[in-house]
């Protein structure tokens, strides 16, 4: 497996390119099969559960992640376009338990592309925010959702003065 991550601060965009030594169909299934998706979407401390999964144009994917304390963090994708085994675009929102987007929270614009390579498949995931302010807000959410490892430590160091 090969992985590169490109961070573009100016455009509030993160691009992840991963090449797997596995067939394109299998890589696509990681998204297309909700049972597979819930095994990688959330970090081990905050596993994901997918409660609704419509990977079709206009469809909704509703998931939640559960913290070690049992707290649930919901999110939904509004799926914009899908071309099986080629790619899809979707907007990812923070949501309440009913799957309704929470106002004032950042939206992640996702554009995922897939292609076969010699001996495997490449996936390019672009996550984009409208502004760097939107991007900043994900920081606080990430802390709650266990996405951040060392970040909390750093805040502690700063607080010590």
């Amino acid at each position, binding site marked *: 497996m090969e992985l590169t991550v490109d961070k573009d601060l100016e455009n509030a965009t993160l691009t992840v390119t991963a090449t*797997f030594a596995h067939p394109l169909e299998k890589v696509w299934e990681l998204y297309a099969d909700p049972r597979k998706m819930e095994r990688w979407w959330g970090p081990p401390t905050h596993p994901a559960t997918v409660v609704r999964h419509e990977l079709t144009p206009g469809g909704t994917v509703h998931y939640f992640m559960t913290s070690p304390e049992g707290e649930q963090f919901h999110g939904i994708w509004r799926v914009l376009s899908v071309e099986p085994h080629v790619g899809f675009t979707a907007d990812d929102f923070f949501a309440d338990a009913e799957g309704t987007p929470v106002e004032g929270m950042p939206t992640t614009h996702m554009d995922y592309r897939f292609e076969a390579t010699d001996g495997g498949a490449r996936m390019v995931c672009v996550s984009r925010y409208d502004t760097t302010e939107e991007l900043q807000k994900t920081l606080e959410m*990430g802390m709650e959702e266990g996405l951040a490892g060392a970040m909390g430590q750093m805040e502690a160091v700063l607080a010590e003065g």
Partner: protein
Amino acid sequence: MDRLFHALADATRRDILRRSVDGELSVSRLAADYPMSFAAVQKHVAVLEQVGLVTKVRRGRELLVRSEPEALRRAREALDQLEEAWRGRIQRMSALLDED
């Protein structure tokens, strides 16, 4: 992330960071207040600069040290956090594919 943590794990560097908020001090002015050589302070500034916590801004003949605006720093942190999250996801995807 480790580099950022390392950069902040030193009292002199945290002090430099605080004093550079207004961006009015040059390295020599900063250095005058520490019981260490100019070169040592310059090195501390370089560590902060490498992780993007300060930038050097030229004004006339002086090179002033300015800490990056908090907002920009937080945006950068957010990207680091997203990177970390995605690295984890790709690892889990890879493990899942291997298992299949």
